[in-house]
């Protein structure tokens, strides 16, 4: 369904801040992004760029003291930023669901796998009988490739990959339409990572999910995402389909990021590091937030924020080199 242009979730100039002793930090800084029905969109950036904050904001699950300052997140005519808690409870898990990086931190160490499912269904589907819950959960486990006998295990008895499968099971238990996967494989070994990515791709097709894959790994997005949004210092700097971004990145940061990843299959390909490090968001640089590291920066970049402009071919880029 990657041609489908119907937007299912619409983020409109979202601002999210964390107050700190040194002033407010804009973790998400004027982000607008549409999720199209049935696509996998990769949200890419390095630590601290705001990608996880954006992910949890979509469910309004921000850890305090973070708060959504302005903007809208529209899902099915509901503005998630303004919805009541009751309305949100109907969306979380049932419409939009999330899988986190560290399954050990997501699962309750004192609860068996079965109890996680029972609690989850009691919360969301209180009318289901206990027998139904158990059989439904076991079906889910099989679908996820977990032997049913692990149903009575505690999280510490499971391997990392197995735990992540349980978390994915809980996330898809109510057949949501959107799955946010926040670095779902970062805590896992390379073979297990590949297995989990395979599983996510399979589930996406079987359940007709729209997926937002948050990751810092360019290899993972290249293999999984239909479209990519690249974030830097709280802003989306480039959006486009995966193949065109990899073939011709337009934003200097996107270009540098792609050149900074060694490709083990093409070892003669030049690898270039990006000078400097990401900015301190409590004291952001003036103008374009990337200008201190950008080799092409000119005067305008140092004083003005480049807006995200639409190009042909559904590309968007926030850089004065590319127009305006």
């Amino acid at each position, binding site marked *: 369904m990657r041609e489908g242009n119907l937007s299912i979730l619409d983020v409109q100039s979202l601002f999210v801040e964390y107050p700190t002793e040194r002033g407010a930090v804009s973790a998400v800084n004027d982000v607008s992004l549409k999720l199209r029905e049935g696509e996998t969109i990769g949200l890419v950036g*390095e*630590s*601290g760029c705001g990608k996880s904050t954006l992910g949890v904001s979509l469910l309004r699950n921000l850890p305090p003291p973070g708060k959504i300052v302005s903007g809208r997140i529209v899902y099915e005519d509901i503005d998630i930023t303004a919805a009541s808690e009751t309305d949100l409870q109907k969306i979380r898990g049932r419409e939009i669901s999330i899988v986190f990086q560290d399954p050990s931190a997501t699962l309750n160490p004192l609860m068996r796998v079965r109890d996680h499912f029972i609690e989850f269904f009691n919360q969301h589907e209180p009318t289901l009988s206990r027998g139904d819950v158990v059989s439904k959960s076991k079906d889910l486990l099989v679908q996820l490739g977990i032997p049913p006998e692990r149903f009575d295990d505690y999280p510490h008895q499971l*391997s*990392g*990959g*197995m735990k992540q499968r349980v978390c994915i099971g809980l996330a898809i238990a109510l057949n949501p339409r959107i799955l946010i996967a926040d670095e779902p494989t970062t805590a896992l*070994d*390379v*073979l*297990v*990572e*590949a*297995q989990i*990515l*395979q599983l996510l*791709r399979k589930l996406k097709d079987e359940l007709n999910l729209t997926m937002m894959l948050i990751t*810092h*790994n*360019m*290899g*993972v997005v*290249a*293999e999984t995402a239909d479209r990519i949004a690249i974030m830097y210092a709280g802003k989306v700097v480039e959006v486009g389909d*995966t*193949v065109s971004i*990899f*073939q011709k990145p337009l934003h200097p940061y996107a270009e*540098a*990021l*792609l050149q*900074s*990843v*060694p*490709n*083990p*299959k*093409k*070892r003669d390909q030049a*690898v*270039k*590091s*990006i*000078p400097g*490090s*990401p900015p301190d968001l409590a004291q952001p640089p003036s103008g374009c937030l990337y200008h201190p590291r950008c080799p092409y920066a000119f005067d305008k970049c140092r004083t003005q924020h480049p807006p995200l402009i639409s190009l042909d071919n559904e590309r968007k880029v926030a850089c004065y080199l590319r127009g305006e």
Partner: protein
Amino acid sequence: MPDIVSLQDAKKYFPVQKGFVERLLAKQVQFVRAVDEVSFQIKRGEVFGLVGESGSGKTTTGFVILGLFRPDSGSVVFDGVDMTKITDEEFRLMRRRMQMIFQDPSSALHPRMKIGQNVMEPLRIHGIGNSDERRGKAMEMLERVGLSPAETFFDRYPHELSGGQKQRVVIARALILRPELIVADEPVAMVDVSVRVQILDLMIKLKREFDLTYVFITHDLSAASYVCDRIAVMYLGRVLELGPTDELFDNPQHPYTRALLAAVPVPDPVGKREKVLPKGEIPSPINPPSGCRFNPRCLYAVRNCSEEEPKLEQVSPGHYVACPILPFRAS
């Protein structure tokens, strides 16, 4: 080039802590076989990669090389000296010649010591120079790792630095004693993606300037392919394949190596297709499978694989594989 490190059948087992009742019942002690009869030689001046998943024994092997763990059996020879047979005093002098770079720079640096103090600490411990000389050496080393001008970093605390800068401080501290061998355990795993190649490039530059030999421990095959001259692939305490980086990546022989290489996410969306992956996950090193340790997950295993443990055999110059079937041998 002569060998700087030589491991011969090195073995390191850890007893599994048992509960009170089990001890009363006097059940047999079990062991985690972290490193199980590992042999290889590291040439002076090379970057030797130890690659594997968590639980493969790569970090323990690094510790055995440094003498931080004494092997239960087998030998570890550093520059002609058997590390298992020396006194503590001799060992202390030896320690200057080999240093370690850790994964997490935030926990490797003392948070309440200034950058300069952190870097000078090894000199102080080994009683080298007076305070002025130590300061001068630390300043010089900060410049060499790219923290320039050094005066602006010397009196700051680790928390004031970015992750990449902290890792540079860790590298400076490792180099201040002018060691010959550096064991780097996942040196870029905790560093921002955009800064990783910076750190790897720095390590390569310093290797040339200081005539270093690196043992590069990583689970990240992309990073390994970028810096290593030779790579040993470990699985459950064993080396399954060892060879020059290009040979290993272009002509992998062991089914496990091939699976690992296939699993690496490749930053190239053109021509992506589903991968054939081995089932399951790395089993517990307490009771590793009999025979070849990879056989329960191997797509090519035959009956004999679960009976006899294969030894490393040379398949082409410098390329060793522990697999009797060699399903991928080019004929």
